[in-house]
């Protein structure tokens, strides 16, 4: 018995420690509460801002740090998937600690707007700096940087003269030569949404089906894998967001790939498909003026070039010069279709891709 008691002493201690654990939990709670932004916000409402973001931490933090440095306003943030953040904001209701939501897709921004979680931002600076098709018609959300989804091809096996449009990727010429990323990625969903808005649903489905018929391998899980598949010879061309190309270019010497800007001469679906990372001020923000000032700052000058440049994207503000490496890929006309419609069309696009057998 003595031995058994001795052996179990660790666990006895654990059980005995349970009340203590309760105390620790309480302490943890209250401790965190003290550093809680809303606590600070109440005390000092001009000095702090809370951002929920589906853009990754390492892509937003540099900008937040710069803002703190220039204005003294400290930014607290939580990152998660956009859909989760939107539900969270809805659940938190009028007591939400958040002031601003940043996501990386016009569809989710539009969806968030449709859920009534944003408020319109009335700002001349924003109207001046951000072209109309890159923000919500009522300024419920504002684009911050542009991401272009374009054709990438093997410089060894593809003559760019044979390339023309997204639609033409379905030509029989590319049978067994095309690579696509999974249809689960929002970038492809918004691209197909653009096709629907340009060609109508039936024609768009025919196009997507012709892509699927041309696939060399199963859809890849990300854009980088897609480009690696082209380099390895599994396929000859595909669709990527341009910044993934930039990243690979910085990693691999003499990349045997190049970007092609499609739909430059098309009358329908004119221009390269673009999407935005963007932001909106929350309806229940306790710091509306501060939030507005922050977004105004984001679409101007240094912040614009850093916000876009840190991920090799394009500034939404046409007055801001593009990062030199990005500029070296050539200039293009972007699609002028208003992005506000994306959220209505994206679910249709997802369903269409399901029907077309695009996994």
């Amino acid at each position, binding site marked *: 018995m003595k031995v058994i008691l001795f052996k179990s002493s660790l666990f006895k201690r*654990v059980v005995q420690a349970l009340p203590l654990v309760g105390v620790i939990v309480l302490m943890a709670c209250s401790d965190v509460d003290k550093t809680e932004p809303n606590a600070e916000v109440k005390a000092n409402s001009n000095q702090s801002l809370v951002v929920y973001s589906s853009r990754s931490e390492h892509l937003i933090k540099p900008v937040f740090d710069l803002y703190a440095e220039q204005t003294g306003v400290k930014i607290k943030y939580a990152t998660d998937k956009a859909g989760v953040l939107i539900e969270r904001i809805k659940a938190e209701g009028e007591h939400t600690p958040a002031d601003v939501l940043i996501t990386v897709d016009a569809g989710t921004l539009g969806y968030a707007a449709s859920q009534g979680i944003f408020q319109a931002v009335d700002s001349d600076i924003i109207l001046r700096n951000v072209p109309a098709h890159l923000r919500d018609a009522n300024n419920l959300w504002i684009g911050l940087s542009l991401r272009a989804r374009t054709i990438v091809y093997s410089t060894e096996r593809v003559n760019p003269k044979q390339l023309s449009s997204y639609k033409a990727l379905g030509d029989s010429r590319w049978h067994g030569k095309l690579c696509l990323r999974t249809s689960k990625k929002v970038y492809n969903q918004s691209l197909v949404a653009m096709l629907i808005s340009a060609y109508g649903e039936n024609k768009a489905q025919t196009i997507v089906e012709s892509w699927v018929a041309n696939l060399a391998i199963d859809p890849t899980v990300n854009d980088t894998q897609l480009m690696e598949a082209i380099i390895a010879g599994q396929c000859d061309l595909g669709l990527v967001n341009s910044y993934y190309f930039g990243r690979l270019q910085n990693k691999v010497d003499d990349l045997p790939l190049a970007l092609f800007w499609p739909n430059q001469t098309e009358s329908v679906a004119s221009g390269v498909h673009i999407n935005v990372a963007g932001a909106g001020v929350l309806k229940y923000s306790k710091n509306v003026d501060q939030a507005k000032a922050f977004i105004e700052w984001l679409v101007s000058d240094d912040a614009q070039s850093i916000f876009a440049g840190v991920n090799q994207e394009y500034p939404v503000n046409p007055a801001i010069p593009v990062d030199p490496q990005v500029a070296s890929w050539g200039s293009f006309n972007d699609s002028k279709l208003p992005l506000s419609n994306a959220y209505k069309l994206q*679910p249709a696009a997802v369903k269409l891709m399901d029907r077309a057998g695009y996994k």
Partner: protein
Amino acid sequence: MPSRSSLIWSVFLVVMALPTVLALSGVLSAWFQPDFKTLSHLSNYVLPSAIKNTLLLVLGVSVMTAIIGVSLAWLTAVCDFPLRRFFVWALILPMAVPGYVIAFAFVGIFEFTGPVQTGLRELFGNSSWFPSIYSYGGVVMALSLVLYPYVYLLVRNAFQTQGRRSLEVGQSLGLSVRASFFRVSLPMARPWIVGGLLLVIMETLADFGTVATFNYDTLTAAIYKSWFSLYSVSAALQVASVLLIFVVIVIVIERYSRRAQQYAQQRNASLNTQRISLIGHHRWLACAACATVFTMAFLLPCAQLIFWAWPNVAVELNSSFWSYVWGSVSLAILAVLVIVGLALLMAFTARTQNSLFTRTAVRVSTLGYALPGTVLAIGLFAPMATVDEVLYNLGAPSHVLQGTMFVMILAYSVRFMAVAYAPLESNFLRITPSIDAVARSLGVSGIRMLRLVHMPIIRRGLLTAMVLVCVDVIKELPITLMTRPFGFNTLAVRVFELSSEGLWERAAIPAIAIVLVGIVPVMILIKRSDNDAH
């Protein structure tokens, strides 16, 4: 007196089940406003293959983890062969590797552009015969290799405590060693095998990270598609309830199949005597089997991670990196204490107050493991917000609960109660009811009985529970992401931030750290169980 104490225990069970009931009713309430448009699309184009894939995946992973887990447990617990002592603990290590990490490591190694196929092409000029890693086989392999330790740990525990006794029984009946294994030892280990498999099945059903890396569409993928792409939270929750039905079916089958069986066993089975010494080539076969599993499940993925991590160490290993480590560690410790403590009390209650009510309450409290973390977290978020609102109206500051560790730990408890409960339950089953009776006749009852009588017997199960919860919490992602306080980060969160941008090479560094941190509790488990038996 008994009625008062049983009332207290009943209240305890209800409180325990409450958060899960809240989360589940959040899921089920979606049926009050069903989104038929989305559902009809899903049922035409998505669900048929998703359900088929899910069933096949559960089947494949269950079979593989049962085979790997049980056979390795038997070899290391009962037989003797070269390097056995090393494999006893080494074979637990893959548990520290998150599914989403082994998935991206395997994709890196085995895909067309990876080193294996590239090497094959250089040697033979062609690698097209090599099976694609983006396949059913690939997913089953990845998931089985990180999940088999659940079966291995629990079943090894059973074989160890059966000792040679079960074999001796078989042999005294004239059975060969092999026949004794299949007819005595294996059936005797059934609660442990089933308990382990139940965890594996629930983990498989809830998995998203692993299957997404292989672009293998399961029900969780359908949930995410409804929610994030079709913007229908309602349809997402309806699909989640289909997932719940699966789980309930599995649990009912499991309960039904072992009704009226008892596994009580005499204590003091001699543990560390008389292993079966394998002879001749059997020794090396046993050794090779262990080595193969260990290499595939641990060495290989770790090697790939290190290969990726090496050039990026300088970028990632900055001061904030250590805050991620600290976040993971502190969270795991807190979660282990709370969850295992509660699970222990629950298992004890279920034993002393055995009734339909108790059994149901316990089942409900352990259902959360099968829900994808995101769904569970969102299910809890709304009630928490409501409670906060009520408190606020009563004069409390806003967000007393939300954004605190309390909500995180609560959500973890709902999710991981099953993990802590399974090893405790199967250990409690082994204590004969007569022991309780004796204790009571000596005036020892209630918590004192738990402490003085049960704890010494179930301590191995307790340790297993602690390690399982600890490792699971370190690996956990969706709940952590959603409920963490501002500025609080863990290693898993860092992996998510980097991998969602496709930066696998940099994500490899926090991934390695997850594995390293996860190894610590595993080592403690081994050290402690080494003290009484090998």
